[in-house]
């Protein structure tokens, strides 16, 4: 592999050039996913119709899953797609179809003052948290392992097995409880 042999090729086809372009591509995809998350969030909390809000929420969760992938956690990214987009968004869509009558599927404003006041509240919270995050120096501890899927499985079944069982019981109680709550007054 003499570099001069490949000099007629475009730069990104050589090994070193390709690594550089792959980094750049990773950065571009990250920016696209960041924009997807933010646009989805804006649609989810601002759209007039609830169905569009749910679609925006799904878009936002796709972006969040991609961000988990960039944080070295492909397993959590997959779970995000499965649980949030596959289960939570679909459940909310069903609730809109079952519970929202035609005229109330559109969101009116909650009052003249709620928009500006909500914006002020959210802005204060956001900028407070951003200021706190940027102005604090976090101590970086040396890594003990890479956090692979195998280690997650081992930890779930050894160190965190008690929490794992408790979460299963919480989910079971939530399913039974939601059935009981939604069952009342069904004959009406």
């Amino acid at each position, binding site marked *: 592999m003499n570099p001069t042999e490949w000099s007629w090729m475009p730069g990104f086809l050589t090994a070193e050039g390709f690594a550089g372009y792959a980094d750049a591509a990773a950065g*571009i995809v990250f920016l696209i996913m960041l924009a997807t998350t933010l646009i989805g*969030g804006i649609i989810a909390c601002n759209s007039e119709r609830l169905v569009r809000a749910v679609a925006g929420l799904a878009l936002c969760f796709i972006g969040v899953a991609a961000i988990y992938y960039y944080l070295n956690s492909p397993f959590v990214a997959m779970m995000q797609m499965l649980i949030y987009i596959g289960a939570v968004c679909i459940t909310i869509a069903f609730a809109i179809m079952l519970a929202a009558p035609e005229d109330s599927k559109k969101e009116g404003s909650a009052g003249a003052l709620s928009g500006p006041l909500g914006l002020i509240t959210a802005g204060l919270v956001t900028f407070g948290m951003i200021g706190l995050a940027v102005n604090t120096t976090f101590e970086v501890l040396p890594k003990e392992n890479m956090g692979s899927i195998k280690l997650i499985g081992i930890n*779930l079944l050894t160190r965190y097995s008690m929490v794992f069982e408790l979460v299963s019981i919480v989910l079971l109680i939530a399913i039974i409880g939601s059935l009981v709550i939604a069952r009342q007054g069904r004959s009406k």
Partner: protein
Amino acid sequence: MSILNLHNSLNTYLILGAVLFGMGIYGLVTRRTLIGMLIASELVLAAASINFMAFNRFTAPDPTVGQVFTLFIMAIAAAEAAIGLSITIAVYRNYKSVDTEDIVDLNG
């Protein structure tokens, strides 16, 4: 720092989490229906998970802990969505509305 290298910095993720949290708070304050408020609260939970995962990736010594915790947040969020939606449906049966302005029986 180049804009293409943003995914390697902790602050990017913390700022994204703060912005998503703010959107969720804005939705909780301004939405008028119960379902709209539930959608906004999902945004708040997603913001909290992003913060956990960011610290897990950049500062924690054992990166499995944050991933396990985020999985538990997801399970609790699914339980919360199921309960919240069944309450919404029960409220709709009794009041024929999911508007927060109509559910004021406990208003003194």
